Structures are given as C-alpha cells and as structure tokens.
C-alpha cells in the first residue's frame, strides 16, 4: 500500500463507534428528561430533599434509599418496575447509556462474523468481551 493512500477504517470499529455514540446520546437525553420531570414534580419516586439530606449527612446508599423512598433498596434493575415515575425514567436513561457499549460490542462482533474480513482471533475476543459485559449487566457477574 502506498504511503499516500488513506487506509480504510475497520468496519467493526466504525460500527462500535456509531452504536455507542447514538445509544449514549439517546440515554443521556432520556436521563435529562426524567430529571426535568422530577423537578417539575411529575410523580417523583425519590423525595429529592430527603435524598440530598442523606447525601449531605454522608449516609450510605441503602440508608439514603430508605430515607428518600420509604422502602428498602432491592438490588437489581429497580427502575424497570418504576417507569411510571420521573426518577424511574431518569434512571432508565442512565441504564440505556450504560448499555451502549454492550450493544456496540455485540453489533461489532456480529459485523465481524458477517463481513468475514477480520481474523477469527478478534471475533473470538469480541465475543468474549460481549459476553463479559452482558454478564455484568444482568447481575450474574455483579455479586
């Protein structure tokens, strides 16, 4: 290859970049909308003043949950069953942003499989990484 001919960027990288950018932006936008609704008083799940009081007092997360929601924290994807609350929507947005890289690596790996241009070694690496991230999201790796 000549030194003056621009090499093409690898397909897997381009796909990963597009996925993470757009899913991340959508997640962050939903998070902002949820917070605006929360401050507008549209069915908030947390008592924001109690939450702030707990943060200010240096309380641990489970204590703050109990003070700000009146319920004990249940580990896991709590927001999925509380999407009718503005804070549930805000947390859904955060979760979508946190899923961007997981979806991105799955799509990039499937892209590598379909295009058949990348050495199999990187397909296997992509698959292991995608699996690792999925296990983390589902809580199987989260203890």
């Amino acid at each position, binding site marked *: 290859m000549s030194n003056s001919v621009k090499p093409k960027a*690898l397909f897997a990288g381009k796909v990963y970049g597009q996925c993470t950018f757009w899913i991340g932006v959508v997640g962050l936008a939903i998070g902002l909308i949820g917070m605006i609704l929360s401050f507008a008083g549209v069915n908030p799940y947390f008592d924001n003043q109690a939450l702030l009081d707990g943060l200010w007092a240096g309380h641990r997360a489970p204590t703050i949950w109990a003070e700000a929601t009146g319920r004990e924290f249940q580990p896991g994807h709590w927001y999925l069953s509380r999407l009718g609350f503005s804070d549930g929507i805000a947390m859904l947005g955060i979760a979508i942003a946190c899923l961007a890289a997981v979806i*991105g690596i799955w799509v990039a790996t499937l892209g590598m499989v379909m295009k058949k241009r990348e050495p199999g070694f990187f397909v296997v690496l992509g698959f292991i990484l995608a699996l690792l991230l999925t296990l983390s999201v589902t809580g199987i790796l989260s203890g």
Partner: protein
Amino acid sequence: MSLLLMTGALAAGADPVEVSDSVGPSAIHPLLFCLLLFLGCTIIGFFATLGGIGGGVIFTPLFMGFTPIDSYIIRTTGLFVAMAGTLVASRPFLYKGIANIRLLLFAALPYTLFAVVGALLAGHIDRTMGAEGEAFIRGALGLVVIGFGGLFIVFGGRTEYPRAGKVNGLAKKVELPVPYWEESLEEVVRYKLSRVARGLLILALVGTISGLFGIGAGGAVVPVFNLVMLAPLKVAATSSTVMISLGDTAAVWPYILGGGMFPLVAVPCMAGMLLGAHVGARVMLRIKAGFVRWIIIALMIAAGIRLIVQALGML
C-alpha cells in the same frame, strides 16, 4: 475556583469522616444542588480536556476528598461520567481509523475483566468492612491519585512515534498494528508493537484500580500503550478512550445494581462533564494549555493528601 468554593461549601456541611445518625435539614435546595454539580463538573470537564485526560480521574478524588457524600456513591458516579464521556468521544476516532479496534479488543479483555473484579471488591468492602474499609479506600485512592500525578509529570517525556526494537511475535502474527492516516504528516503511519504481554499485565492492574476506585484511568492506560507497547501517541490516546468505554461499562453495573447510582447526582454530573469536555476541546485548538496540566497535577496531589489524611483520621 467556583468548584473549590462549591466543594468547600459542601465540605462545611458535614465531615465525611464522621457519619451523623440523623438526617438534618440541608442548607440548599435540590435544584440548586443539581446546578452546582452541573457547574462543578463543567469546570472539571473543561480543564480535564485541556489537560488531555478524562474527567473521572479528577472527579472521584476531588469529590471524595472535599464533599461529605458517601464514597460508594461518588465512585459509582465517577465511573459513569468517565464512561459517558468516552461513549461520545469514541466515534470520530474509530470512524477515522486512528483508534486501533484490534489493539483495544485485545487489551480490553484483561482491563475489563479486572475492572469488574475491582468493582466487586469495592462492593464487598462497602458491605463488610465498615469504617476500616472506607479508610482503606480513601487512603489507597490518595496514594493512587498522587501516583497518577507523578505519572503525568513523567509522562511529559512521552513519544509521538516510538520505534519498537524487538517486535512482539504474537502482535505480528495476529496483525495487531493497523496503519492509519496521519493528517498532520499527510501520509500513512505504519507501526510495530512490542512488550505486549507486559502491557496486558499492567492493564489488568490498571483495570482493578479503575473498578475499585471509580476512576476512568485513561491517564494510566495511555502510557501503557505508548511507553510499554510502543504504539504511536495518537493511537494510544484514542484506543485508550475507546477501551475505557468497554471497561467502565462492565465495572459500573455492579455499582448500579448495588444501589450506588442516584439520578439526582449522576445526571447533572454527566451533563456538566460532557459540556465542559466539548467546550474544552474547542478552546484547546486556540490556546496553549500547557499550564493547565500543572494545575491538574497540583489538584490531584492536594486531593490525594486530603484523602490520606482522612483515612488516617478514620483508623
């Protein structure tokens, strides 16, 4: 300066070392708290970008050192803001082919795996070790942050296009280096990689630190790629950004599922950090920002000393 005033005001509200038994009335409204967080994180994002590092490595030590908020919540938010920034920043690097997707897939495996181990360890310490665990986290983070500050000083000697003496056999066999188009030279840059196994071992350690302390750790990943594995600086910096998006995603979920993420804290921090980084990237093209690096180093060392003092006070 606004950030310091804000964090000073927060620190005046309660001593993070002493956790009070009852909830007292806060001095500020939640909306004002959000706006202050947004402003503080905009400033952090701005200066971090001018200094050429990710925001997480400044956010976590500063907020742990100078606010009364519980460290588990700060570390959750720190990982989230570090990850959110890299999600948005990765696209142009990958589209232009500067970030090496093969190198980052290869290096992301130990980094991600050990970032999860670090996050699980953080959860275990938080649940079982009480004040001693908190003292350990603060003291160790203080040392790590001072170490990172030292790394930034040493990293002044980074190499734009390092030459690999002995080429790594595995890297060559799997075609790890991918040539890229360098705009400033108007030519294709081809490079070789060296000491890959050593680099992966160090990345596993950096991943553990990132997951345990809730920092992005890009400041440590770039020297590993550039000075240990001898990738060109641009490839090292851009591949590090993309790799952190993977590693921090895996590490942030144990924190989220453990209840450390509150939208009231995370959303304004994330929005401020992205805005600050965006403005910083534009300003960086027009000014000489060398002095900013020294401000960041001073801030990190100050936060590190403060964390160590807090840790000693808790023992």
